[in-house]
């Protein structure tokens, strides 16, 4: 099949941000129009992707679209890959995106300024996410990856007056940004090593990728990127921290989309790197630790949003584990991974509703804290019962109760783990961890139910807490209808698997061409063929109920990893401060010593590599004219005298003497342009010096570096640079070994002597000027820009002070300011 046309996908990626920005044009009061326009963005993406999929079908993961050239010199082009994996995630983002737009209308209420601000940021984020999921080019993935970090920063730090929220947003940004850098490094390494810059080509040539050190390093770097985005231990702290964001954002970013980016990337990587021996231990280890840690921490929280956040962390760990099992190679060559997209979809279908309902409860009751929800069912707050019903329906899926997709998904995961453990016995530990994590989920649901109905074993110890709650108004149904819709899909999929399978069978072709089941089974099938997975499920449920009823493990707990970011941040600031003050002394001579030392070291290294640099080039007579020798002696004498005199005025004059001697040298060698320029420059610089001298502060009598080594350094630098200049004029071409003088090229290519100019230099006869305006014209342009900038500096740093004289009628000068 011919590669698909990228413009449809490009339009799908761009639609949300365009629609989001377009909402800025709508007048403030027109909230309905604003919401509808904002919803058009992700809806258009859905439509365009649908058109693309019907026209071209689900691409196998080794067939990207044709590309639009963007930056050919970086191998960068706009090419997209709409395979099962990418299409699934993109449809998820766009679909949930539409619901979130409507939900946020209810959540922000009539707060017009919030709504006006929210939709552009949301559109930006949605587009970045779609880009990540659909990009085929490695660099394009990295680019969109960074864009998601940036756009989520705006969304997490939504409460811009709340210092904590902004700090948490920074924390999320720096953590995921660090991962983004690792990803970029890995992608560059991978692309540079293999010479292949597209995921589709990488998958197609996966067998040739080998397992060299660089490939493994590239994989580890990309994994760090994926793990940071998907909140894997030990970088998981940013996700619960980011819960200060408004609920629509939490529901969108932290359940359905952004945190899934890392999981998605692992799905992309699996066909490429799955055969590396490091894949299984690395991916599974981090995933399993995260899975158990997140579940354990969730059990000890009391704020609904935090509970769900830690559960998300746990679930992400599970997904990472799941893709880790993809690296299992048993005797039959099959990997232990089955219907992975259904499992990921199932999570979005209960976690997003949970977040949405948590936000709706906060909206109605002003709290999300579990103890304050005690006995909510019996309180009779208007409209709260329908919220509770949806909450409990979603919680049932969270617990993995039979009848939901979630139940079958857990079965599939446990089955995969069991299958993997058959060939790798060490993975039994992971199986046990999975059962424990599932038990935690069940325990949380048990406590939630008990609390809401006001049973004795519910959570009610009244701990003081703080919660950010947004405005209230009567846009009620919007707050629960999206959630209910999503939950409904859970149950449809759970009770009528053929409906689910008919949709997902087309997408689930990606990682495993030969899935070992035909899709989600009917509800009763696990019970008809009981096996290890069902036993583990039942064990988890039983353990969870016991855990949920017990009074143990209820106190608030602070995650020790929350200290990672603040401590790192402080250390960086502290050492950065120290390093800064070590380098930036504020003394010009220190900077010069530093620069010149580096220069000398560099040249010494070059001379050590190529000792020919130390030979006097052929055709250079050291002393060819007596006048030149005399002038040179004057220059040298002036240079030596310069540090010996202490008066600045005398120094300026001595420097001038050296300069005029150089003018003489230029004249001697018939470089009239140079001589004229040097002459003018000397005159002006002496003038400037005389003006400036009175403004300078007194000489520091106690130099930090003693002058003698500095004199030696200065002499050495002078001699070295002189020598390099001499060599530069007589360099030998490395390839042809012919003597090449710099002048010869310019002489040939300007109208001096010959008529051959190949159109360069504007046929000028003055080589110096032709160099300035043509061969090195860009340099000249840069130089005059530098000059202009320097002048700007003088004008802005020396503001005219003549009007601000002090009482004695003295002009207020910089020197006077310094004295004061």
């Amino acid at each position, binding site marked *: 099949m011919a590669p698909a046309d990228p413009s449809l996908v490009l339009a799908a990626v761009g639609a949300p941000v365009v629609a989001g920005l377009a909402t800025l044009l709508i007048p403030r009061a027109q909230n309905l129009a604003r919401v509808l326009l904002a919803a058009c963005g992700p809806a258009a993406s859905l439509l365009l992707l649908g058109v693309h999929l019907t026209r071209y079908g689900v691409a196998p993961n080794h067939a990207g679209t044709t590309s639009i050239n963007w930056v050919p010199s970086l191998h960068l082009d706009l090419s997209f890959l709409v395979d099962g994996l990418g299409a699934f995630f993109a449809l998820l983002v766009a679909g949930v995106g539409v619901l979130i737009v409507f939900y946020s209308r209810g959540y922000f209420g009539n707060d017009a300024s919030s709504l006006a601000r929210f939709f552009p940021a949301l559109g930006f984020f949605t587009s970045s996410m779609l880009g990540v999921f659909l990009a085929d080019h490695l660099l394009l993935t990295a680019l969109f990856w960074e864009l998601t970090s940036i756009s989520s920063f705006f969304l997490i730090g939504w409460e811009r007056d709340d210092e904590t929220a902004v700090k948490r947003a920074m924390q999320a940004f720096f953590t995921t940004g660090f991962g983004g850098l690792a990803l970029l490094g890995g992608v560059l390494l991978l692309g540079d090593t293999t010479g292949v810059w597209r995921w589709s080509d990488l998958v197609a040539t996966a067998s040739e990728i080998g397992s060299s050190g660089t490939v493994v390093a590239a994989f580890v770097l990309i994994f760090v990127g994926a793990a940071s985005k998907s909140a894997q231990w030990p970088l998981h702290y940013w996700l619960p921290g980011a819960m200060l964001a408004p609920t629509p954002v939490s529901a969108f970013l932290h359940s359905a989309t952004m945190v899934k980016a890392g999981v998605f990337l692992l799905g992309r990587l699996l066909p490429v790197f799955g055969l590396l021996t490091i894949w299984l231990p690395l991916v599974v280890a981090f995933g399993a630790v995260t899975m158990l840690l997140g579940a354990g921490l969730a059990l000890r929280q009391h704020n609904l949003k935090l509970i769900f956040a830690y559960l998300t962390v746990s679930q992400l760990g599970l997904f990472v584990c799941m893709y880790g099992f993809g690296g299992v190679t048993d005797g039959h060559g099959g990997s232990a991974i089955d219907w992975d997209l259904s499992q990921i979809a199932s999570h979005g279908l209960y976690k997003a509703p949970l977040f949405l309902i948590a936000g709706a409860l906060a909206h109605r009751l002003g709290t999300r804290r579990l103890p304050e929800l005690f006995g909510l069912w019996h309180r009779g707050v208007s409209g709260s019962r329908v919220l509770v019903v949806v909450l409990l329906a979603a919680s049932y899926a969270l617990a993995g109760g039979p009848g939901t997709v979630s139940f079958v998904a857990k079965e599939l995961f446990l089955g995969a783990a069991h299958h993997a453990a058959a060939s790798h016995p060490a993975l039994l530990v992971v199986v046990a961890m999975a059962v424990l994590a599932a038990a935690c989920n069940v325990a949380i649901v048990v406590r939630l139910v008990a609390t809401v109905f006001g049973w004795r074993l519910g959570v009610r110890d009244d701990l003081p807490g703080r919660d950010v709650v947004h405005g209230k108004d009567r846009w009620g149904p919007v707050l629960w209808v999206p959630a209910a819709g999503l939950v409904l899909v859970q149950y449809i999929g759970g009770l009528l698997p053929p409906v689910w399978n008919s949709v997902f069978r087309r997408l689930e072709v990606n990682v495993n061409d030969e899935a070992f089941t035909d899709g989600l089974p009917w509800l009763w099938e696990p019970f008809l063929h009981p096996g290890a997975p069902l036993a583990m499920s039942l064990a988890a449920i039983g353990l969870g109920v016991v855990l949920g009823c017990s009074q143990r493990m209820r106190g608030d707990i602070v995650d020790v990893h929350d200290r990672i970011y603040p401590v790192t941040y402080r250390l960086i600031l502290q050492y950065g401060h120290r390093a800064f003050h070590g380098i930036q002394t504020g003394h010009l001579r220190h900077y010069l010593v530093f620069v010149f030392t580096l220069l000398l070291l560099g040249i010494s290294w070059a001379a050590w590599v190529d000792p020919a640099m130390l030979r006097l080039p052929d055709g250079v007579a050291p002393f060819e004219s007596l006048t030149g020798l005399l002038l040179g002696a004057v220059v040298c004498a002036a240079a030596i005298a310069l540090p010996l005199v202490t008066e600045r005025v005398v120094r300026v004059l001595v420097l001038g003497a050296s300069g005029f001697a150089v003018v003489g040298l230029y004249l001697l060698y018939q470089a009239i342009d140079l001589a004229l320029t040097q002459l003018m420059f000397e005159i002006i610089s002496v003038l400037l010096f005389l003006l400036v001298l009175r403004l300078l502060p007194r000489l520091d009598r106690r130099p930090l570096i003693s002058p003698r080594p500095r004199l030696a350094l200065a002499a050495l630098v002078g001699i070295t640079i002189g020598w390099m200049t001499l060599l530069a004029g007589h360099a030998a071409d490395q390839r042809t070994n012919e003597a090449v003088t710099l002048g010869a090229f310019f002489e040939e290519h300007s109208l001096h002597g010959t008529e051959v100019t190949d159109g360069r230099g*504007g046929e000028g006869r003055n080589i110096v000027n032709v160099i300035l305006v043509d061969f090195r014209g860009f340099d000249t342009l840069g130089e005059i820009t530098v000059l202009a900038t320097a002048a700007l500096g003088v004008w802005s740093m020396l503001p005219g002070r003549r009007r601000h004289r002090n009482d004695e009628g003295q002009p207020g000068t910089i020197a006077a300011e310094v004295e004061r």
Partner: protein
Amino acid sequence: MRIDSLILRTAVRLVLPLTVLLAIYAALNGHNAPGGGFIAGLVTTVGLCTYRMAFGERAFHRLFPVHPRWLVVAGLGLTLVVAIIPLLAGEPLLRSASTVLRLGGQELHLVSATVFDLGVLVVVVGVAVGMITRLGEELGP
């Protein structure tokens, strides 16, 4: 900074126009003979600064009524335009074009680089005069 001397004033009054003429000549002729925008700018600056030394700040302001920053802006703009025009014609940045005009038996070699040189001249004058006058203001008379 003013040097009160009748001889200097008289000399400067004579020399300044010549200096400016020399500068313009150097700038226009720089393509084929010694000269060029940078030198021309420096020559002009030296002339103007001598004038300022001889006649004082107020007289200088009458002679040079604009703020030097406008010279910098104009000069940079001019050079940028000259640099970019070749791009529009599909040529590399700063590629100079030249043509030969025949005026009554005399050949006049016109090069776009001359305009670039004039831009450099204007920038150099603006920067140097600007710095010197500003530092001079700092010191007072």
